[in-house]
């Protein structure tokens, strides 16, 4: 069983559309994250939820909205997609606490905005 699974793996869409990416983890973790990896492979945190509460909300356009229906799920909705949103988006999860803060990553969703 995949520990952190994201769907879809690939997403090709037109500018201006709205799209969602789903993430689920079956590790029993209490914290989940969304990262954006750009074309130069630079990895940047976008959001983090701990027990369904938003705890990290980096400087991300309002068009991006995370939703955590429960501890095992963290979805990302993107409104009015722009060319610059093209990237690979990774979901990750971990237990809270420094010693246990090993993050487990999904395989990524490659978003291409045309």
């Amino acid at each position: 069983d995949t520990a952190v699974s994201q769907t879809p793996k690939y997403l090709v869409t037109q500018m201006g559309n709205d799209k969602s990416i789903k993430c689920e983890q079956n590790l029993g973790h209490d914290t989940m994250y969304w990262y954006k990896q750009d074309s130069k492979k630079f990895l940047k945190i976008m959001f983090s939820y701990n027990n369904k509460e938003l705890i990290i909300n980096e400087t991300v356009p309002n068009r991006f909205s995370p939703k955590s229906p429960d501890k095992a799920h963290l979805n990302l909705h993107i409104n009015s997609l722009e060319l610059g949103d093209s990237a690979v988006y990774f979901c990750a999860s971990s237990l809270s606490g420094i010693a246990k803060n090993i993050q487990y990553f999904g395989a990524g969703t490659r978003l291409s905005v045309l």
Partner: protein
Amino acid sequence: AQSVAQPEDQVNVAEGNPLTVKCTYSVSGNPYLFWYVQYPNRGLQFLLKYITGDNLVKGSYGFEAEFNKSQTSFHLKKPSALVSDSALYFCAVRRDSARQLTFGSGTQLTVLP
């Protein structure tokens, strides 16, 4: 504040030779340091971490890293490189009061047969 630097975008090494991937950090307070590896079209995988204790940390796949507080470094090492070690390696840091990891820019390791 916390930041991490990986000064080399690319490291090439011959199979069987030792490898080093460099990382330096800057934090206020105690640093917690991590190495992750990313294979093509995959998510990041945890390799090893330094929280406290011994400065030499051993991790997965024969990798190890040495925490050097005076040089603020946490270099990743392996005594004998394999072609299958070729991947993108990320160093990450977190200070004890922070809620998030800060990742370096990544180093592409290529092991030549």
